[in-house]
């Protein structure tokens, strides 16, 4: 600990945003400690199977990030939960679960998001009907073709995806759009068709948000090459049939008719919720935006600058983000933190 704490940065979270930030700091010669509550780095990326938009293998991409960690000799304190951050006399005091305290000149918050708990949408029966699963559950199942979506060793015949589960929904208090679930739904629909070519796949959506580069093209490929049916209408409820299949009801809003269909699996595209503990507001005065994510001071001029001087934001803790978004934000926040330490802000 010979380095002056005023010149050190704490990075909270070793997801892709935290790794990108820590690498950038290291390359600039700035001392950083990375805190990660899980047993290894990577964040949510460690849970995905294939990635949009190009359906790249997630394990390969993760390995790329782990190589960066290794090559840059990042010191990641895994298994270390940050429980509190306070600012006193211009220094940040970071406390961990074991009660250990360290001081830093700046903090880079990269603690990501929480997945929406699908059981809160009771009408879909998640956790009650075994054939109702979430998009992260599907990513996990696709890792192992021996289980996948097989039912008594048979390929599924019909699968439906439900968009906007836990997002754009005043009933669960989340008015915002989670941004990545539409394209995740397209990517997963293709994955199901690829694995089970005879299975019919339907996506129930309200709007399709294909904002990123290559997204619209993947959506068109899903229709044209994989024959996926996109049905405009929000699934209102799901109920099990005698054989355990799931009957769903929706309105086909383009025809103006109610619609009923029985599927082998119902897959809920769950949204992102803010991972920022409310306590940071009390201890630090960290402000949040309307959706509850960490808010920045100025969306145009100072993205990544939190309401607290010296505390910077990167990745999904500041709002729904893709992996490339999070990486870019991590690098940008690292630069902002360096400027801050050098007294340039």
């Amino acid at each position, binding site marked *: 600990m010979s380095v002056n704490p005023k010149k050190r940065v704490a990075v909270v979270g070793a997801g892709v945003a935290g790794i990108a930030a820590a690498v950038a700091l290291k390359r600039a010669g700035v001392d950083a400690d990375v805190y990660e509550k899980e047993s290894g780095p990577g964040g949510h990326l460690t849970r995905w199977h294939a990635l949009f938009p190009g359906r790249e293998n997630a394990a390969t991409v993760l390995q790329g990030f782990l190589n960066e960690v290794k090559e840059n000799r990042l010191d990641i304190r895994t298994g270390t939960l940050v429980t509190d951050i306070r600012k006193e006399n211009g220094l940040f005091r970071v406390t961990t679960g074991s009660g250990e305290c360290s001081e830093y000149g700046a903090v880079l918050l990269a603690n990501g998001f929480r997945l929406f708990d699908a059981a809160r949408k009771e009408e879909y029966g998640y956790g009650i009907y075994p054939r109702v699963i979430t998009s992260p559950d599907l990513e996990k199942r696709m890792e192992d073709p021996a289980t996948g979506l097989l039912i008594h060793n048979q390929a599924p015949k019909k699968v439906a995806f439900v968009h906007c589960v836990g997002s754009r929904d005043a009933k669960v208090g989340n008015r915002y759009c989670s941004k990545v679930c539409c394209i995740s739904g397209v990517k997963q629909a293709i994955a199901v068709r690829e694995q089970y070519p005879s299975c019919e796949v339907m996506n129930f959506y309200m709007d399709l948000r294909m904002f990123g580069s290559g997204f619209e093209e993947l959506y068109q490929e899903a*229709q044209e090459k994989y*024959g996926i*049916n996109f049905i405009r209408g929000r699934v209102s409820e799901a109920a099990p049939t005698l054989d355990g299949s799931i009957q769903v009801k929706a309105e086909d809003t383009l*025809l103006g008719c*109610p*619609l009923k*269909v029985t599927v082998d699996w119902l897959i809920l595209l769950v949204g992102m919720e803010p991972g920022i503990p409310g306590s940071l507001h009390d201890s630090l005065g960290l402000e949040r935006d309307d959706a509850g994510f960490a808010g920045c001071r100025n969306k145009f001029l100072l993205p990544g600058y939190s309401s607290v001087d010296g505390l910077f934001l990167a990745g999904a803790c500041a709002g729904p983000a893709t992996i490339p978004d999070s990486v870019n934000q991590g690098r940008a926040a690292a630069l902002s933190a360096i400027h801050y330490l050098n007294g340039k802000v």
Partner: protein
Amino acid sequence: MNGKNDKWGFHTEKSNLITLDSNDRSLVNILAEQVPSLNSCFFCGSCGATCTASDDGMNFRLVHLLLRRGELQTVNKIIRSCLLCGKCTLVCPRNVDTRAVIYNLKILIHELH
């Protein structure tokens, strides 16, 4: 009572519920094999807006949607008014060969009857 309600447009009719489990949706698959661009349709409605026969009820977007849901009852009647002029194909942003779809559909329906 019934007659009176009819006057105001209220009357009991066959349910308009679409039951995908029992509806026969094979026709759209045959058409998509013949004209693969059909699958790219995102139901924007450009074809219906420009249609020469729209006054007579023709609407390609609607026909495609009904086929996709297996709601075939009215399709035959609707497409009768299509003149195969091809205007819809000119405006489609997803390059669906709409005219070829209707042409093939007319033949398929003719074969079915």
